[in-house]
């Protein structure tokens, strides 16, 4: 990769309703790793309706130059306007890399942008390493059962980076005495895409966040009737709640408020016991920070085992009844 412009890398910081979502600052740790400890050529992009003040605070705190993009349409996430913004920045700076946090909206924006401008597009990066052949970016495929390792050959890249994959460290802070805040104007073009409102899903109230123990059911339980045995496991713990993988909620076996994962709840209980969950990347992202993870699954290659502290390779519908029977026998 090479770039002659003022900025080598552009990172888009996520906002909703003019508030910065601080997790996306992890992108600076990603850039730090790509450029082996240097973030001097990094420009942060922050979008919103009235965002300038937030940008000033962020610039002072982080020491990075910031492009503030104000537009009424940016009050809610707006990939349509974001593509236009990326186009403007691409024209102006020709950076080597555009990076965004891996969210569904950002994937939409980078793919449309890269298709328009002919950039290589890679989504869901979880690991970076330097190889003899150049920079290698790794992502999950096949639900985490396989990895795709991509050697970067393109001059310019547009990528999304998995949340949590690159941790922000205190000493990563980039100290610069003067930061530069630039206002970027976007054309007021008529677009067919209009965000109208934002709401919490009505079904999201749950006790998952407060539970010390989460017993989570996956498709491996086979049928909704088998949720009873999962509920029976919940009963043998203090302050426990029932969780679920997305397919269990999609099948209407449990309401979506029980869903753990990227589109559901992110949890970190004392114990997370995954029963018949294969462990999609989206699910793992929502529970991997639990203090202790027990996974029961009959597929020895299940991706959930990659984050488990204790691995039980068993058919859940055989093992869980045995587990409960022995618990109750010992209790007597």
């Amino acid at each position: 990769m090479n770039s002659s412009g003022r900025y080598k890398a552009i990172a888009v910081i996520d906002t909703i309703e003019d508030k910065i979502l601080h997790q996306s600052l992890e992108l600076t740790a990603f850039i730090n790793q790509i450029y082996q400890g240097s973030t001097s050529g990094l420009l942060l992009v922050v979008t919103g309706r009235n965002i300038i003040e937030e940008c000033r605070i962020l610039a002072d705190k982080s020491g990075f130059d910031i492009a503030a993009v104000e537009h009424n349409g940016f009050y809610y996430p707006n990939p349509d306007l974001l593509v236009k913004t990326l186009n403007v920045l691409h024209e102006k700076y020709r950076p080597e890399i555009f990076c965004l946090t891996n969210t569904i909206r950002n994937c939409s924006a980078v793919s449309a942008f890269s298709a328009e401008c002919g950039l290589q597009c890679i989504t869901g990066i979880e690991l970076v390493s330097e190889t003899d052949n150049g920079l290698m970016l790794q992502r999950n495929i096949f639900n985490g059962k396989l990895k795709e390792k991509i050697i970067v050959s393109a001059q310019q890249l547009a990528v999304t980076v998995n949340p949590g994959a690159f941790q922000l460290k205190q000493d990563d802070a980039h100290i610069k005495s003067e930061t530069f805040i630039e206002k970027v104007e976007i054309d007021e073009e008529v677009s067919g895409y209009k965000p109208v409102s934002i709401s919490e899903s009505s079904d999201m109230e749950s006790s998952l966040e407060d539970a010390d123990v989460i017993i989570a059911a996956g498709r491996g339980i086979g049928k909704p009737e088998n949720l009873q045995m999962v509920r029976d496991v919940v009963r043998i713990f203090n302050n426990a709640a029932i969780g679920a993988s997305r397919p269990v909620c999609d099948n209407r076996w449990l309401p979506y408020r029980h869903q753990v994962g990227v589109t559901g709840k992110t949890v970190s209980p004392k114990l997370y016991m995954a029963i018949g969950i294969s462990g999609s990347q989206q699910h793992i992202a929502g529970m991997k920070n639990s203090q202790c993870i027990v996974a029961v699954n009959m597929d020895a290659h299940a991706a959930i085992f990659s984050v488990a502290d204790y691995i039980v390779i068993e058919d859940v519908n055989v093992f869980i009844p045995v587990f409960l029977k022995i618990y109750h026998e010992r209790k007597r």
Partner: protein
Amino acid sequence: MKILVCIKQVPDIESNPEIRCDSLWIKEDNIAFRMNRYDEYALEEALLIKETIPGTTLDVITAGPERASSVLIKGLEKGADNAVMIICERYPLSSYETALLISNYASDNNYDIIFAGVMSEDAMQCTTGPMIASLLSIPCVVSSVKTSVDYEEKIITVESELEGGIIETVTLSIPCLITVQTGINQPRYPSLSGKMRAKGLKPSVIDGEYLKSGFNKSDYKLGYPDSNVNGVTITGTSEEKAVKLLEILHERGLLL
């Protein structure tokens, strides 16, 4: 109303894929292939619209090797009117290549709505749908969990799911592209009459080899995940495993 649904054939994720010796794709023997689950929901959403708006035609399209036509047959059995197979034996295609092939076909056919799944279960990129929309210069919304069509006003209102259970409501002008999240509906099974009707239908075939090179995927290799070095595998009979696990949980003071 004219609707196109983009469908991908994917390897069954539950089976444990082995990597081919060139490390570019998996060994296909002993692997079952089926319709991408996200696309099943996209197809169902299109079928529901077809049932409510009279005169709607619904086409299904896929790009890939010849074996992928089985997902189009499934689409026809479920109620699609026409199927389009873009044959490309070179596999796997990048999402940009797939988007080019599908948008080239769609640009001549004036679709009001193009549906796709939010991602494919094998490549997990979330990119093909938005790329098709970008190449056709039509608006696109991703991750729909509810779609309402006002055909008179040519406006579609979509409830689109963001991370953390937040819903964003978006309006789109027709023509547009919508990617569909799972759980939005309950995909149907083909009816017997649908299966009979589909027997008389054949996908029309387009040769996709015209894309040739120039859009190749970059240099990549598939690999297996590093094995978990931290996790302890509990061994023994089912009873022994249960006892060991209960002891661990007891030691941690978690059990009642």
